[in-house]
């Protein structure tokens, strides 16, 4: 069975380590915050200038001066710090964030990612995504493995304009967890109940399948 959005977030959360500074993108990545294991602590970086993002405010706590990169009202966690946008991206570009999780339209076997623009549709802009993919060493891309029509999003070569070139090493889809290296997708884990055949069928880029591909554990 393909993973739900929540399960994808849950699986990503298993990659968190105690003391990690993490930037979570909009959409599924945001859900990761709900599954941080109880015995560890992470700090969330929001690229508009907040390290130590807390939960949403109560009605009483709402503060127009305190939002996240998705422009949602938030709170600060204990030990948070505030800084300007240049400092925030110095942090990101300088590789100080331990893990970045973001979505994508397409990823290819060279580690390219396309996530911000579909030509012909309205182009809203890349926001901080290009900085995030260029700056982080440790990125997990979360996405669906294929379109509703069964067209793979894990390609030999991205067809959409790129957000970043050669910067993606880990991809988690609703079907599989993969590593990208040496121009290939390496299958690490499959979603519970999903066969290797299912994955192969929906992966356009070259896929390396080890003898044993464990099911994800939740």
């Amino acid at each position: 069975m393909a993973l739900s959005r929540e399960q994808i977030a849950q699986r990503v959360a298993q990659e968190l380590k105690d003391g990690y500074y993490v930037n979570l993108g909009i959409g599924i990545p945001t859900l990761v915050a709900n599954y941080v294991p109880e015995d560890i602590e992470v700090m969330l970086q929001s690229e508009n200038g907040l390290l130590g993002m807390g939960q949403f405010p109560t009605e009483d706590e709402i503060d127009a001066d305190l939002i996240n990169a998705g422009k949602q009202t938030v709170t600060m966690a204990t030990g948070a710090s505030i800084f300007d946008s240049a400092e925030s991206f110095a942090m990101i570009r300088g590789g100080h964030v331990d893990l970045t999780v973001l979505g994508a339209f397409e990823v290819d076997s060279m580690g390219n990612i396309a996530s911000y623009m579909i030509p012909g549709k309205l182009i809203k802009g890349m926001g901080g995504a290009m900085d995030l993919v260029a700056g982080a060493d440790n990125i997990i891309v979360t996405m669906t493995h294929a379109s509703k029509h069964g067209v793979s999003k894990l390609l030999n070569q991205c067809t959409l304009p790129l957000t970043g070139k050669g910067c993606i090493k880990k991809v988690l889809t609703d079907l599989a967890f993969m590593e990208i290296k040496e121009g290939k997708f390496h299958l690490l884990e499959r979603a519970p109940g999903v066969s290797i055949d299912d994955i192969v069928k929906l992966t356009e880029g070259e896929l390396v399948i080890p003898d044993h591909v464990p099911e994800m554990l939740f």
Partner: protein
Amino acid sequence: MAGFDKVVSSYEEAMAGLEDNMTVIAGGFGLCGIPENLISEIKRKGTKGLTVVSNNCGVDDFGLGILLPDRQIKKIVASYVGENAEFERQMMAGELEVELTPQGTLAEKMRAGGAGIPAFYTATGYGTPVAEGKEEREFNGRKYILEPAITGDFAIVKAWKADRYGNLVFRKTARNFNPLAATAGKITVVEVEEIVEVGELDPDQIHTPGIYVNRLILGSFEKRIEQRTVRPAHSA
């Protein structure tokens, strides 16, 4: 008060000298920390043909979006736009030029502009549409692109507190692009929620020294919220 007193008493005075076809750098992220009254004054003045540098372009009836109906903006340099219908219409119709710039690159370009750095290299955008027409260069085995600095004829900034010398303190994430914009304007105009006596702000805790500020005005702010997200009061 000496020549360091930056306080002006009207928004008209605050934006005096803004002319058609100038470049305006604006602080703010989304609708957070935007110089809302300075933007309104630009609308009132009716200045046209502006190049606006700002992370976003407001919404239809608030923030920089209010400059769209009268076609006051010729070009916008931003990282994320299109939160407003009129923006979409003008962009699609080719009436509004849009230069999409990665958010971190945009912040760094403002900082560089204020700091006398004419250009810098960044890996952000290498191999993407952003790199088109830009120099590519390798350092230590990695590819980077050259990004030029940005400066503006005017910078419009929203701070929280200031003293009359223009020393500024920002509040929470309303800081964002504001301190960077403040450094990059030939004329930097700041509106604030409170003006305190000179000497009241702790010198160690000033975010923007007054040297960057030309004019300062006390304003009152709507502070509209774009995405009002809440949790129930009883949750942890």
